[in-house]
């Protein structure tokens, strides 16, 4: 089982790069999959510095540090987003355009870009796009962008070491499943089945 020992990376989401392809564990990858990774990783950054800073700010508004775990930026969510828009190009226009939409809104309202606005102003506008059912019609495109951003942030965060610890996923390790633990059965007033390993 040595070959599949989990978690050999040193930081939260930085990948140990064995083949220069940005995959920590390229076992079983087909040639075209390796080539694709190489090609994507050799491309220049999709997001410019300003966009990147905006994404980091937004991601930390979506998933901030709390008493349980760190923030989206602690989990390097931005690196995931930068990669995934290259891997799934359908994200590119909505993400770039969504960021621009957000900046334009802020410029009109506060005379500043989103990252240049105050925290209070940032939250004010996020509040208007974070609840799809109550977003005003003129804010709808912003709500659609925010939904995409929120989902990418959640993926980036909860698939990182920090996020998996936070959510409490306890598997992906050899063991024996013997049914629902007794204390949990008791909590829900359930009884164990009379069959099985």
């Amino acid at each position, binding site marked *: 089982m040595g070959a599949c020992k*989990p978690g050999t990376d040193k930081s939260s989401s930085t990948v140990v790069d064995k083949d220069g392809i940005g995959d920590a564990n390229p076992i079983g990858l087909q040639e075209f999959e390796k080539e694709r990774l190489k090609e994507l990783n050799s491309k220049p950054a999709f997001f410019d510095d300003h966009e990147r800073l905006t994404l980091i700010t937004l991601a930390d508004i979506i998933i901030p540090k709390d008493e349980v775990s760190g923030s989206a930026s602690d989990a390097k969510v931005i690196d995931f987003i930068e990669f995934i828009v290259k891997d799934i190009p359908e994200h590119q226009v909505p993400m770039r355009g969504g960021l621009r939409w957000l900046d334009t809104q802020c410029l009109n309202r506060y005379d500043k870009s989103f990252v240049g606005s105050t925290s209070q102003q940032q939250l004010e506008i996020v509040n208007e796009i974070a609840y799809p059912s109550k977003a005003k019609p003129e804010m709808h495109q912003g709500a659609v962008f925010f939904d995409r951003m*929120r989902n990418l942030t*959640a993926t980036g965060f909860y*698939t990182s070491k920090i996020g*998996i610890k936070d959510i409490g996923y306890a598997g992906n390790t050899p063991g024996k499943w013997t049914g629902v633990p007794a204390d949990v059965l008791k909590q829900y007033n359930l009884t164990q089945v009379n069959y*099985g390993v």
Partner: protein
Amino acid sequence: MGDLQIKKSTEKYDVIIVGSGAGGGMAGYILAKAGVKVLMLEAGPYFDPAKDSKQLQWPWESPRRGASTTRAFGDFDGAYGGWQIEGEPYTLKDDTQFTWFRSQMLGGRTNHWGRISLRMGPHDFKGKSFDGATDDWPITYDEVKPFYDRVDRLIGVYGTAEGLENDPDGIFLPPPKPRLNELFIMEGAKKAGVKVIPGRGSVLTQALPGNLDRGACFFCGQCGRSCRVYGDFSSSSCLVIPAIETGNLKVIPNAMVREVIVGKDGLAKGVSYINKDDSMEYQVNGDTVILAASACGSARILLNSRSATHPNGLANSSGIVGKYLHDSTGSGMSGFLPQLMDRKRYNEDGVGSAQILSPWVLDNKKLDFPRGYHIEFGGGMRMPSYGFGSDVPKVNGLVPGRDGKMKDAGGFGKSLKDDYRRFYGANVGMAGRGMAIARESNYCEIDPNVVDKYGIPVLRFNYKWTDAEIKQAKHMQETFESIMHGMGAIITSKAQGKEDNYGLHTPGDIIHEVGTARMGDDPKTSALNKWSQAHDCKNLFVTDGAPFVQQGDKNPTWTILALSMRTAEYIIDQKKKKNI
């Protein structure tokens, strides 16, 4: 490219098998073990789950975190290939919708399948006599039963003896105990009057008696990635690799078969293929040819094997090849159990196959469609992957927050982060898999205008669902809803009504497509006899899903394995008798 040459091998094999999935793997295993010299051609690369599986990798080890960019079921899935393969198209006739999942690799689609291992029942084999809705197979359940029994012993399957009329019991290993959400499903189903039994899956919940080559399951729930210790059934790990070890079976990977070569006597004498590594054309010779390239893949080879003696394609004097194509019906529903919010964390990965199952036990006399479906269930505290949590901002407005107050769906910040935790593991899903009637009017054929990048004419599909399948999907939705209500779940998937055929999947979606070279006693209405031997060509056999006359609501793999074993032993017998 220089002058194109065809490299003809002078070596002659007893048997050439095209394809290494369940049907090819089992035939290869039985023949090689019996001392028959076998050459197996596989269109994709060599794959050994012990070395190539992505089992136990963490999502952060891949930069795309499990997204499905290069593999249809996600980054870590065990299947190469997918719904579309670069340079190997298929086409659709008129307004047909059909999807074809191909996995070109050693073991084929068995490397990633759900391992749900069900026998077809007596009525599934004799539908005409049972209710008249479907055609009869030329064989009965009782004739296949001994082979199902031997597949159970050889490969291993868990389950429980239930004594059901049309879901025959097997020789079972103990099933896994249910997860928490599965206990709720069992309660909810009971209230709704829906029968639920322990699942049946080809996973070694205990060491397989008499087998030292395979490890027992260690309960990571990742059968879909294929298993490094061979704790579940893949044709690669359980059949082809042991067959190679006999010294009697040789595999040529990346060998894309073009056609079966036929002699002047009308018998098969070998196959031609393109080697994807060097792009050269090859011919190999064999006394017997077995096609097991998947139901549609084998139909394509047969139809492309035109010759003076078989002008209509091989095994196709009846014109039946490609016809009676049928995939299982499918429809689904998802939701969550409010009582499971904020649940205690522990490892409930379990096995990567169905832990519980709802078999079809209803009386069709009270229903407006023939036969029925079984239900598979999902949910629980699974490993996060691409798309994780995307449902949470949609559903967090459906239940009160910690403060007891309702709020709008969506959000951000600490409150949303708390919601991701609260909802984790509370989800529940259901998927029906049902009998679709095999019809002559649903078929694949050779597209007269299109070839793939190897110059091989491609398949064109023609398929329409009928009222029988749509009404079945409606019934599925009603049943799912009653189970959801029975357990107090909140349904979150979109309501599926008449306008979208009650969520009935596009044919092909369920990846149970079979029936394209059906067996039968009458050469005018079938391509193969009851041994899966071509009526028109006695040394040609088909051992994948193509020989199916009519699939039940049972996933086809276990039947493919049993029939392939039966055919392989018939071939050995016929060789002894010098009949082939």
